[in-house]
Structures are given as C-alpha cells and as structure tokens.
C-alpha cells in the first residue's frame, strides 16, 4: 500500500507542478491481443508528445499524456475513461480499439470529449451520430473498397469475375468493414465466395484455409492484426495455396515480412501511413527524434501512425488555444476546421467538416516485393453520402 501512496503522491506533485499543462488521455493496448500493433502505436504517440513539448508545446503550454494500458478489454477501457475524464480532467483522448471506441461513443458525446481512436471503423465517421469521434486514415470500409478495386483491376481473366474471401475475427474490429465490403463486391462485380471467421488469438488457420480453397477464392482479405495475418500466410504457404492475400493496415507493416518471412512475399496491404524511414518530407522530424533518443530501436508504420495522430491533435489544440477555446467542444470545432491539413506525406492530407468526419478517402496499396514494402497503387474512393457511417 505504501508504494501506491508514494506513487499517488508523485502523480499529484507532478500535476501541481505544471498549471500550464494540457492533459490528454491515452488509452493503449500494451498487453492484450492487439499488443503486437498496440505497442509501436503507443510509442509513436508518446514520442510525438515529447517532441511537441520539446518544440514549443501548444503555444508554450506543455502537454501531459495521461496514459493507460487497457489490455484490449472493454470494461477496463471504460474504467480508464472514467478516471481520465472524471479525475484527471483530460481535454481529449487518443484511444485505440474498435470495440472500446464504439462502446464509449455515447459517453464521449455526453461528456463532449474529442476521441481520436486508432480504430478507423466507418461507423465513427458520421457526425450526426458520433460528433466527437475522429481518426486519421481512410475508414476501414474505404480501405477494403480500395483493395477490392485493386483486385478487380489486377484480375486479367475477363471470362469470369474474380472470387474473393474475407478472413476476420468475430468482434467489432474484425467485422467493421465487412458489410461495406459485401456491398462493394456486388457494385463492382467481384464474387464474394467465402467468409471465414478466425478467433481472437489463434495458432492455426488450416481448416479455414481448406474451406476457402474448396470455395476457390482467387483473392483473400485478412482483417486481423500482424500476428494473425502471419499465421494465415504461413499456413497458406504450407498448403501451397495460389490465393493472393491482402491485409488491413493493422496486419500489414514492416513487421509482417519479418514475422511471416517468405510466406509474406507478394502479399498486398492497405497502408494509410507510410513505412518508417520512407522518403517523404514529414519523416525528417521522426528520423531526427529517433537518432537523438533511441537510435538502436527499430520502428514501423504503426509508429508513424502514432506520430500522425499526435501531429493532427496537437494542431487542433493549437487552433483551439488560439481561439481561446481550450475545451472539448473547442477542440472538436478546431478539428472541423481542418482542410487538406498536410502531414508532410506521413499520411494523406486530413479534412474534417461538421458533417463528415472522413479524414481522407485515398488509400495507398503496398505490396511486399523481396521482403520490402513497395507502393503499387493509390485508390481514391468518392465521398458518397450513403457511405457515411457505413
């Protein structure tokens, strides 16, 4: 107990020290089933905050990130949220998963806390339903549409439509883009022949793959995180399948060829955030920070994603501070002034309006060629009103 009291004391002392602090909540997964991608993202956010504080802060005010590891468990995220909003009085939150973000959306709206989730669920893009939810990437649905478009164009045999399978987990994250994908398949003439459900954590996907083989899928989209994607790829290689695999942005990064080795060769993936070290102007400050603070570490696109989030919300905080409206409502209003906000190529320019929270609809598609991530295509989806919130 004593150490808890000491810890609390340290916390209070730190809180008292900086009156000119802006408190921002961070809900991350460092130990749960998505920790494979949650850890680099969290580090990106933390480093981004440190960099901002070392470079002028928010018009001179420092940011304090109040963060917590919720282990990808919804009740823990709710508890953490209550603590951040009730006790720590954070102004906004940088969150993580789809299940917890969708679980908190009513609460967030009631408390007027802007909530930037690392979940790109299309359900969070309609401000008439979720006015305080934001994210920094094309939605999962637009990403899947983009990939399906790539499939359609990649398919050379004009005598029949390409056959596609979806792999996803039976949870909010896994299912988020599926309905949009089903409809888009019909729209563009791709035959969705199979949907395979995989568990949250799994070591073997052979039975699902054999099922898929029987249905004769030419392409398959995997909507789980890196560890799961590499398991599927490894088993597919073992079975000698000819299916071309694609992955969502939480299954596809520099980590994938490292984990899945040669089984990852030729796999495509949507990459809303560039790989670490990519030659874009925005990468310079990340590289400088990396050289200065932890030159031995390796980073990936998830780390870049964490940074991109910080760059977006710190800009919103700056705009809100200038407008003398450093409140949840002020930050939301500031975010909705974003028009083609340029992140130096780390991700596509970001636009939010009060009627549309889709930051962008352009999805870069990468392919693993001899172990390297290579950009093959960019697909832009139209901002159809009927796709808002789907």
């Amino acid at each position, binding site marked *: 107990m004593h150490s808890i009291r000491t810890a609390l004391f340290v916390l209070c002392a*730190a809180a008292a020290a900086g009156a000119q602090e802006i408190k921002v909540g961070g809900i991350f997964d*460092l130990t749960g089933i998505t920790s494979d991608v949650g850890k680099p993202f969290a580090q990106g956010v933390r480093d981004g905050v440190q960099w901002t504080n070392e470079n002028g802060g928010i018009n001179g005010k420092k940011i304090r990130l109040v963060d917590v590891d919720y282990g990808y468990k919804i009740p823990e995220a709710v508890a953490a949220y209550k603590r951040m909003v009730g006790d720590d009085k954070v102004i906004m939150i940088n969150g993580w998963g789809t*299940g917890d973000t969708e*679980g908190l959306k009513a609460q967030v709206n009631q408390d007027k806390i802007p909530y930037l989730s690392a979940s790109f669920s299309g359900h969070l893009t309609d401000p008439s339903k979720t006015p305080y939810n934001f994210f920094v990437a094309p939605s999962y649905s637009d990403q899947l549409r983009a990939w399906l478009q790539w499939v359609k164009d990649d398919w050379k045999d004009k005598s029949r439509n390409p056959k596609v399978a979806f792999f996803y987990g039976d949870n909010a994250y896994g*299912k988020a883009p599926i309905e949009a994908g089903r409809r888009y398949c019909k729209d563009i003439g791709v035959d969705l022949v199979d949907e395979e459900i995989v568990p949250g954590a799994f070591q073997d996907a052979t039975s699902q793959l054999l099922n898929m083989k029987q249905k004769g899928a030419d392409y398959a989209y995997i909507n789980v995180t890196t560890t799961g994607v590499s398991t599927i790829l490894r088993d597919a290689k073992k079975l000698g399948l000819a299916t071309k695999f694609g992955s969502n942005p939480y299954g596809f990064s520099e980590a994938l060829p490292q984990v899945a080795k040669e089984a990852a060769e030729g796999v495509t993936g949507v990459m809303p955030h560039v790989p670490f070290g990519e030659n874009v102007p925005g990468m310079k400050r990340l590289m400088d920070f990396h050289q200065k603070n932890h030159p031995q570490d390796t980073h990936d696109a998830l780390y870049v994603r964490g940074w991109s989030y910080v760059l977006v919300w710190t800009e919103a905080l700056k705009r809100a501070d200038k407008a003398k409206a450093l409140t949840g409502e002020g930050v939301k209003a500031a975010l909705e002034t974003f028009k083609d906000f340029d992140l130096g190529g780390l991700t596509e320019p970001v636009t939010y309006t009060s009627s549309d929270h889709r930051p962008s609809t352009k999805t870069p598609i990468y392919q693993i060629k001899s172990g390297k991530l290579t950009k093959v295509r960019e697909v832009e989806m139209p901002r159809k009103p009927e796709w808002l919130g789907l």
Partner: protein
Amino acid sequence: MLSGEFHTSYRADMAIYETARARRVLAAFLVVLFVLPFFGSPYWLDVLNRAAIAVIAATGLNILTGFTGQISLGNAAFLAIGAYSTAYLAARGVPFALVIPAAGIVTALAGMVFGVPSLRLKGLYLAMATLAAHFIVEFLVTHWESVTGGVNGTSVPAPSVFGLPLANDRMLAFLILPACIAHLWFAKNLFRTRVGKAFVAIRDQDISAEVMGVEVFRFKLLAFGVSSFYVGVAGSLLAYQARIISPENFPLLVAIDQLGMIIIGGLGSILGSILGAVFWTFLNEGLRLMVSALSGQFPGLVQQFAPLRLGVFGLIVILFLVFEPDGLAAIWRRIRNWFRLYPFSY
C-alpha cells in the same frame, strides 16, 4: 476485553454476529460505506461499484462452487445472460425494479438448464460442461443480432427513480450497494437453512448426502439456480453501470477471474467472496495506478512496466495460495480471534 466467547444456548451458537461488538463494527462499516459515495471521485466510485458487482457475482459462484462443490466456468456466460436480458427489457421501457429481478430469474433458468449435466458429471468433467455453456452463450450473443446487437453491442438506458435518471456512478452506488448487501444477507442466511445445509452435504460427500435423504439432483439444480440468479443480478447491474455491453465484455477470462476471487477469498465462505472480490478488483486498480505513476517517472521503461503488472498480479495470487490456501477469510478469522481472545489467547 472479551477474552473469548462462551455460548450458553443453541440460539447464541447459531447467531450470525457472535458478539455485540461485531454488530456495532458492522453497523459502523455500513455507515462509512454509504457515506463514501458522497465524497469519492468518479473514478473511485466506478471502482467501488465494480467491486460491489464483483462481490455479488463471486458470492453466486461461491454458493455453487464453494458451498455445493460444483465447479463452474460458466460465470462469464451467466453475467452475459443477465446483462443482455437487462438491455433487452430496459430498452422496452421496463423499470429497473422489475428488470433486475427478471434478469436474475432468466439467468437462474438458464443456469438450471446448463446445470442438468451435473446429474452425471462431477469435478473437472462438470467444469468442461460449463465451459461448453460459456461458448454456447458467447455464440448466441454474437450472432443473435436482433436481440443482442451482435459484435457492436447494445446500449442500456440509465435506470431512473421517479423520472430521475441514475446516470453516474455516485447515484448508481445507492442502487448497487444495497443490492449487494441484500444478496449477502440472503446468502448468509441461506446456509443456516435446510437448503443451505443440503448444499454443503452434497459438497462434502454426495453419496452420503443421498443416503441421508438429500435429493442430490434437485439440490444441485437448485444450487445452479440460486447461484445463477446472483450472477444474473450482477450482470444486470453491470449492464446498468457500463451502459453499453458487447460480447467483448464477457470473455472467458472473466469466469477465471471470478474463480480466482473466491479461491483467494476463501471457498465456502460468504466473507471470503466479499474479501476476494474486493481484493481482486482493488489490487488490479492499485497495480495499474502504480504502473501509470512509474511510467510518468521512467517514460522509457513503460513498455516493460505494462506486462510487469500482469506478472506481479500472478505472483501475488501464487503467494497467497502457497501461504494461505484457505484464503483471505482465514486471515480475517485469525485477526479477529486475536482481538477476541486478547489478552488470553491460549
């Protein structure tokens, strides 16, 4: 100075509070408990409410596993049934005073259905059967979308008293704490009745219980029913507190957690369920606060601290099992006896 206690009648021997002092201490504790919600911060009230809900659920599990000896891994599923019945009824405008008992009854019925295998199965085999129950319920809540909302979950309106919504944890505490106390009171008294004694007889030796005239199957089913009622009520309160529930709220880990609570607290002890659930909930939060504080001090090490929390948690549980296998309730008994017998402890 008590220097021990001496009963002169059977009535005194059966009493719940063995001394007048015990009654006064309990009364003082209850007063403090009901004053707390006026002062606690939102976060600590959330923890308090979750602890009280965990106490109800752990007591339910203890009735089944600790008192009747039927190992169950179905608690997460029963919580889910209670929570989803609540969501379903509350969304149709049923007041919470009816919803909570209804959720308990629905769960009790489900619990008795899943308890039927206990006629033929014992021990680990029964644990497997209840594990199956968990997966069946998990599948149902994920796929029966018209009722449960599927993976996206469903929201629960705040309970309201005369039009006043109990929208925050402070107000909910005045619903959850009395519910918790009422259930504890009932459980404590249950084991002074014929039914409760029959449960214990089944645990100790089911064949001799049958020989003594206890209808084993009937009482096993009843134990499943009573236990699931408790868990269903806990699930219902959980739904009202969380306000949005999805299948991700009820992973198997929740069932394991609750077994952990009653093992740490003390199997076959009402006090053990309370101590175990409170200890488990607060230890988890305490460690989390410590990790947060430490990561503020050593930002570079935060990636190492997060998993450390789980490791420390596991270590504490193991140490408890090694040094006090009878659980917190036994520790409490020793402390209490020391005071009671002081200064003549021999």
